């Protein structure tokens, strides 16, 4: 199994972190999870999310793992992004959450 996140180059970047509150009605459910992971896969950076600032961190490119987080509406979603395009990736992730994944 290959993993885009396992790039050794990622180690040389400083992780960027930020958080946003889930505003869409039923939280990070099926459709938002699919949307978020699809967006995340478009970036080279390693993207992780968590319900607390200190983790545990979940691979934001895996819909199976993102759904396991079961993030409800009103939860604060923390992101940790490491890689060459980390800044752009983080901005896109935050925008997705702020916009309620286009369904709020």
């Amino acid at each position, binding site marked *: 199994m290959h993993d885009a996140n396992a790039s050794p180059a990622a180690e040389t970047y400083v992780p960027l972190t930020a958080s946003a509150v889930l505003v869409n009605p039923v*939280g990070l459910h099926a459709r938002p*999870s699919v949307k978020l992971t699809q967006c995340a896969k478009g970036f080279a950076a390693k993207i992780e999310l968590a319900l607390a600032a200190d983790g545990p961190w979940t691979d934001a490119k895996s819909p199976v793992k993102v759904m396991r987080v079961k993030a409800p509406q009103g939860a604060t979603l923390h992101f940790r992004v490491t890689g060459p395009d980390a800044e752009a990736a983080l901005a896109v992730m935050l925008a997705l959450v702020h916009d309620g994944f286009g369904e709020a």
Partner: protein
Amino acid sequence: MSEIHLTGRAASPGLAIGPVAVLTAAVARRTATGDPAQEATTLKAAIEGATAEIVKLISTLEGEVAAILEFQIAMLEDDALAEGAYDAISAGVTADHAWRSALDAEIAGYRSAEDEYFRARAADLVDIRDRVLARLSGADTAAKITGGSIVAGDDISPSTFLAADWTRGGAIALAAGSPSSHVAMLARARGAPMVVGLGPLSWIGPPPALALVDGDAGIVIFDPEPETRRLFEHRMAAANAAQTAADAGRLEPACTADGQRVAVLLNVAAPEDLADLDPAICDGIGLVRTEFLFEASHGLPDEDTQYAVYRRILDWAKGRPVTVRTLDAGGDKPIAGLTVDGESNPFLGLRGIRLSLARPEVFRVQLRALSRAAVHGALKVMLPMIAVPSEFDRASAMLDAEFTALRAEGIACARPPLGIMVEVPAAALRAEDFGAAFYSIGSNDLTQYTMAAARDVGAVADLNDTGNPAVLALIARTVEAGRKRGVEVSLCGDAAADIHLTTPLLATGLTTLSVSPIAVARLKAAIAKVRS
């Protein structure tokens, strides 16, 4: 053979009658190769095959239905889903066992979720599991259901639902399931009535041949008596004719034929009931049941959790009045760690306000959360199962105390108007003795206590009639007490949604009825025909 009368939760509206098709879990049988490498290859091929199957199915669908299946594809394409299965295979487990255990663990995770929405996703995972298992065993996928059948089972997968023809009628009756499930969304979109949470579907001897499904009231009757069936068919014919006309007037305010305005409010069992609903269809919310807050297995809800939920409902209502009923546990609604087990007659026991007054530490938390939420809209608070004025007075004093305490702490709060639910005949007979800010008639309990006949006992079900003159007299008496005291009277039981009772109910002087969202269009159409 006597009829079996089961009550669950309405998941998709409408009435249906048809032969029963019992869903049985498909058992996959295959011969394992005994070689881990080959087992892994077989599993990989089965997953890819299942994915291709769904991709093909999606091309024939659109909108919400397609989005549901896109979620399944995203899950199947994610290596993380089968990770555990491949690990087990390399340890010598066969492909089908490995896949089943891995998915069952995943499904268990969803089933234990606190949030109903996430719990409802378990059905999608079951669907994914069975699709791959079917490919592993070379069997046909989803079992075929004959059009027009009443499908009965524990739960039903989106695939099984989509494989059936719903254009010829039919309905779904589930022992488990959820109104938030993808199948419930599909059923609502296709107009198939659905009732979930019926409890174990067990019968002695062969399964029932025929069933009636009432997707409005959440009732399923297996093997109905001829008279039950005749009445049901009569209702179906009337409902079909009325529905067409009703849909047009859903957003209009309700008025009788003589121009009397009738307020139509909503009954809400959980905030999810309001999803995708336009507040313009109603004049407010007449009943928010709060038992759902206490259903989860993780103990009683704290003040902030309750406050957030109440506030969300008030925000939805956009200034329209919202009546929240304090916890109505006991009777047929036991709550672990709160209600009393083993009462000889729970309906006449420690339930509703009696339980809340007996457990002030639990009641206070709810009163505090309600006082805090009251600053965000037109909140009213209603006490269930009130029999004597002292119960109202004690609860009122507790609400005052919590409000005063919050204000002293500098926390934003308001003291909501406190009313009573009139469902004990003693309260209906002496309604004017209560200092309540409003009366809301709970017709289900008022009927069963007045007629001494339970709704779920088939042999006496005909006695359980809200249209009985004795019950209507108690309603009229309550309306009169409200008129004398200048306080509002509404009715929030199932009788409000029964359009055969609209004329007699309005004749008692009632001008406010509260029904579940799916009944609004039909009720408004029925009101428009009433002439006094």
